[in-house]
């Protein structure tokens, strides 16, 4: 096969993956509304199409049909760049996720985990730029709070992941999944909890969603955005949730491992990711929002020391075990 054709096929495949992920994120938006309704003694949207499934394309069409305006007081270049940064950073992170044995675009790149952490920093850039470029009070406060939250919890995220890297001996996600004979949630329970909490904070979901809470900050850094730019932010948030669930599955729940390999490898991965996404929805329905100072204090004064202790403990046990 000629090189050009090879690369062309890869491009097409990547495009299809990106579109598929966006479709899944749109369906997650719909699924979240139905699941929240289930937990709150009500129905979610069930009018548009069978079981309300057409709600997702209806939402997408609604956002696409809105006027693509840039407020006259906003910084035009960064205003347009911010949602692109958010959505593309999260989409690009998906190339290193292994969904099956030898199935993953770049899952055996040897710095996979570092790549994901780097992309999440770009995500933080996008969130911050969105509020900054909007040149308005609520978005500014929202984005400052957002970026403080994101960088605080990224620290603990990276440290919690180091425990997994110590156990697996590699940053490559494919290698980490292959090394999980026992899922690492059993060997690293503290690390799992820290990663889960930091993951919820990284995607600014409840209980960590003060930067964009409607009843606190008029939607925070999202305020001055409308139409498809808002759609990209929104999609970026749900894709981020999908990414964190996929990462937890990869790092702690054994990825695609499970009985009836190799036929059920990808379904196992999907099932575990879906279960974690449902956990995200459940957390949203149950827990109150953390106040901003409580949020930052928790990240620095509790999670960071616990993550450090986790690494030291893992290293000590690894040293003594051998």
């Amino acid at each position, binding site marked *: 096969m000629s090189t050009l054709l090879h690369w062309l096929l890869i491009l097409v495949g990547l495009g299809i993956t990106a579109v598929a992920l966006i479709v899944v994120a749109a369906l997650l938006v719909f699924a979240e509304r139905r699941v929240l309704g289930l937990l709150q003694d*009500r129905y979610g949207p069930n009018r548009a199409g069978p079981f309300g499934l057409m709600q997702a394309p209806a939402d997408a069409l609604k956002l696409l049909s809105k006027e693509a305006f840039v407020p006259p007081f906003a910084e035009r270049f960064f205003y347009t760049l911010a949602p692109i940064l958010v959505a593309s950073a999260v989409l690009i992170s998906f190339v290193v996720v292994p969904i099956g044995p030898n199935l993953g675009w770049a899952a055996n790149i040897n710095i996979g985990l570092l790549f994901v952490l780097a992309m999440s920093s770009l995500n933080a850039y996008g969130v911050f730029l969105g509020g900054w470029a909007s040149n308005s009070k609520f978005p500014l406060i929202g984005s400052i709070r957002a970026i403080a939250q994101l960088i605080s919890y990224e620290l603990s995220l990276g440290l919690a992941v180091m425990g997994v890297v110590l156990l697996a001996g590699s940053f490559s996600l494919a290698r980490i999944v292959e090394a999980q004979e026992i899922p690492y949630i059993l060997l690293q329970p503290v690390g799992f909890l820290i990663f889960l909490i930091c993951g919820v904070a990284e995607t600014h979901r409840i209980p960590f969603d003060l930067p964009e809470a409607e009843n606190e900050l008029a939607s925070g850094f999202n305020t001055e955005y409308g139409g498809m730019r808002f759609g990209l932010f929104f999609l970026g948030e749900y894709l981020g949730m999908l990414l964190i669930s996929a990462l937890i599955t990869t790092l702690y729940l054994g990825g695609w491992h499970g009985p009836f390999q190799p036929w059920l490898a990808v379904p196992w991965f999907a099932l575990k990711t879906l279960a974690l996404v449902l956990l995200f929805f459940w957390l949203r329905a149950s827990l109150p929002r953390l106040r901003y100072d409580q949020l930052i204090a928790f990240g620095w004064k509790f999670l960071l020391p616990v993550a450090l202790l986790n690494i030291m403990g893992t290293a000590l046990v690894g040293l003594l075990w051998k």
Partner: protein
Amino acid sequence: MSLTRTIGGMLGSLAATLKHVAAPRDTVLYPEQKPDLPPRFRGRIVLTRDPDGDERCVACYLCSAVCPVNCIDIQGTEAAKDERRYPKTFQINFARCIFCGLCEEACPTLAIQLTPDFEMCVRDRNALLYQKEDLLIDGPGKHPHYNFYRHSGVPIAGKPIGASEHEAPPVDPFSNLP
């Protein structure tokens, strides 16, 4: 705040929400299911009739006087054959009506009543002006045995003053018999 209590509290919240998965939903799926409305629900206004079949409204203008948004418009007249007052035209503007029920409370003959019907949606605002033929119904509504003229002292053809139920005939002031 101790750690165990915090974690216990969070797990308690999670358990509390999970209980609701098994609970039936409270939503009434309108229009497939209609809501269960009490009989005193203040919905669409109707004009009712006597148990004898004559219309109850005597065009006293009390309802239109008490209406907070002035949506009732009446023109009263008297029927020649039995000397009963009745409304020649009775118009309610449902675009203004707030369904407060004050007209029903003010009516002395229990003619105007509010029913538990709210499905009055129209596509043209002018269709919200209900005239008497839209409002008058064939039955007595919520009070099936009340006939105003039998209780009141208002004289009509065939019933002079003193001839209604529980009413004594008028005293003759020109005789000194008890």
